[in-house]
């Protein structure tokens, strides 16, 4: 039984990370009906942004707990700015193109970002060790134990998700985002500059992905140029599982997926070898049996 709860707890940690990344997919989809397949790479570049600041800008003797917020913010800013640039250069010119065009572009952007990191960081093939900025140690509750850094990951993720929720529900810009998601043409007639709203959405998703980048680095060092691929696919699965376009759904989907993955790894025979396959089993099941996801409404047609 303890083992079950241990897996559950590990699943929550995994799920928090998936949820943070999934929010970027779902928000962008909600506003522009685009699956931003480069989002995983935006996360990956964010991790490298934090890594770079730590290694090349911060003094060596800086205390880890001072460096941590700097690295975290550096990752967030890297991903946020990158998301804005990608939107501006790659997606905005294709705003009125057939759906397939931005999708293919997204894949192109992914590959470009991966290769860029591979060129800039000679060791990115094998992996760069991410700085370990959190004290070692374990928290015990009952028979279950989690490392400090895992607990930090969950707490920070939840704080960021609540901040996002407050922003979207209770700020003027959040209101404008929701209006744009429901009916962009009418939103414009309310004086909303939807280009600005769209870029804000990309930046918000980027900030969360960047935070996930640092967290991933700390719990699963080293980082390489391909970490965005699997993380991106899983977060995408989480977003679809929750109901793409639905912010609460992305969080729920993230946690459900994390827990399913952790439990399946433990209880399915030879599960750890199949670790990365479970997410896709979930994705296929959702697409077959409930394509709108757990919280998704029926897909609306839009002219």
């Amino acid at each position, binding site marked *: 039984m303890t083992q079950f709860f241990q897996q559950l707890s590990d699943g929550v940690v995994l799920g928090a990370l998936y949820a943070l990344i999934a929010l970027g997919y779902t928000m962008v989809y909600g506003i522009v009906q685009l699956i931003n397949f480069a989002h995983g790479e935006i996360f990956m570049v964010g991790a490298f942004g934090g890594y770079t600041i730590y290694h090349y800008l911060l003094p060596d003797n800086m205390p880890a707990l001072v460096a941590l917020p700097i690295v975290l913010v550096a990752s967030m800013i890297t991903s946020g700015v990158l998301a804005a640039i990608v939107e501006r250069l790659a997606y905005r010119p294709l705003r009125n193109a057939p759906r397939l065009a931005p999708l293919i572009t997204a894949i192109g952007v992914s590959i470009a970002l991966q290769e860029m990191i591979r060129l800039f960081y000679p060791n990115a093939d094998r992996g760069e060790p991410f700085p370990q900025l959190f004290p070692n140690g374990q928290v015990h509750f009952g028979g279950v134990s989690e490392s400090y850094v895992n607990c930090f990951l969950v707490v920070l993720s939840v704080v960021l998700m609540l901040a996002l929720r407050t922003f979207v529900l209770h700020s003027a810009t959040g209101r404008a985002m929701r209006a744009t998601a*429901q009916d962009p*043409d*009418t939103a414009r*007639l*309310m004086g909303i500059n939807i280009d600005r709203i769209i870029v804000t959405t990309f930046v918000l998703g980027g900030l969360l992905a960047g935070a996930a980048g640092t967290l991933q680095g700390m719990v699963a060092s080293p980082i390489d140029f391909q970490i965005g691929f699997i993380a991106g696919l899983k977060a995408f699965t989480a977003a679809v599982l929750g109901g793409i376009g639905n912010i609460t759904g992305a969080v729920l989907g993230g946690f459900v997926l994390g827990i399913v993955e952790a439990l399946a790894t433990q209880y399915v025979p030879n599960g750890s070898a199949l670790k990365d396959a479970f997410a896709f089993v979930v994705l296929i099941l959702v697409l077959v049996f409930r394509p709108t996801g757990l919280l998704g409404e029926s897909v609306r047609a839009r002219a």
Partner: protein
Amino acid sequence: MPLLQATGVTKQFGGLRALSNVDLTVEEGEIVGVIGPNGAGKTTFFNCLTGMETRTSGEILFRGAPLPTRPDRVTVAGVARTFQNIRLFHNMTVLENVLVGTHPRSRAGVLSAIGRGPRYKREERKAESTSRELLSFVKLDGLRGELAKSLSYGDQRRLEIARALATDPGLLLLDEPTAGMNASETAGAIALVKAIRARGIGIVLIEHDMRFVFGLCDRVAVLVHGEKMVEGSPAQVQSDERVISAYLGRPAE
């Protein structure tokens, strides 16, 4: 200086000329009706004014300055509209719909929203009190917390008007404000349009209900096949032979 001065507005869809050299002038505080058979280009004219469609040619001055061609800037300049088929934000509350309308008049940016500074709070309070005032103006104050989609048809029309008013327009374009209304709702709509004019807002309305148009408007323009056929006082338009034949067909010889 007229509030709105549109000259030679033309819209070509491929080989179809939906609007051809339409002129329309609206003075401050005036109610102008645009009537015409279905497909005459009335809604296209509104779309060209609000930048939802790009006009092929023509000049539009609002308060003497060229009206922008991007919808959000048109709204910021002071022209608001409603739709024939109501277009509310259905999954937002009644109050939120109107709050979205205050967007162009709010000076609180993204950063101040994150910081939740005093200016942000002041702007939000102002937006909310404006919105509440407008909801009581259209008599929806009891329904502030309802989702827009749960409102009755007549209430949805009034909410759409409140939302348009929240953008603080000088000119309001109403596209068939009484479509689908019963007699008592129509009477309410007449009172509402008069009350909007009393706030100093100019109004252009597209309407098929002739009693509504002729009872309310200071001036009426008739569009037929994308061209302005007649313009004048309700009495002049009503007695114009061409209008009668366009609407009723020619008398049998």
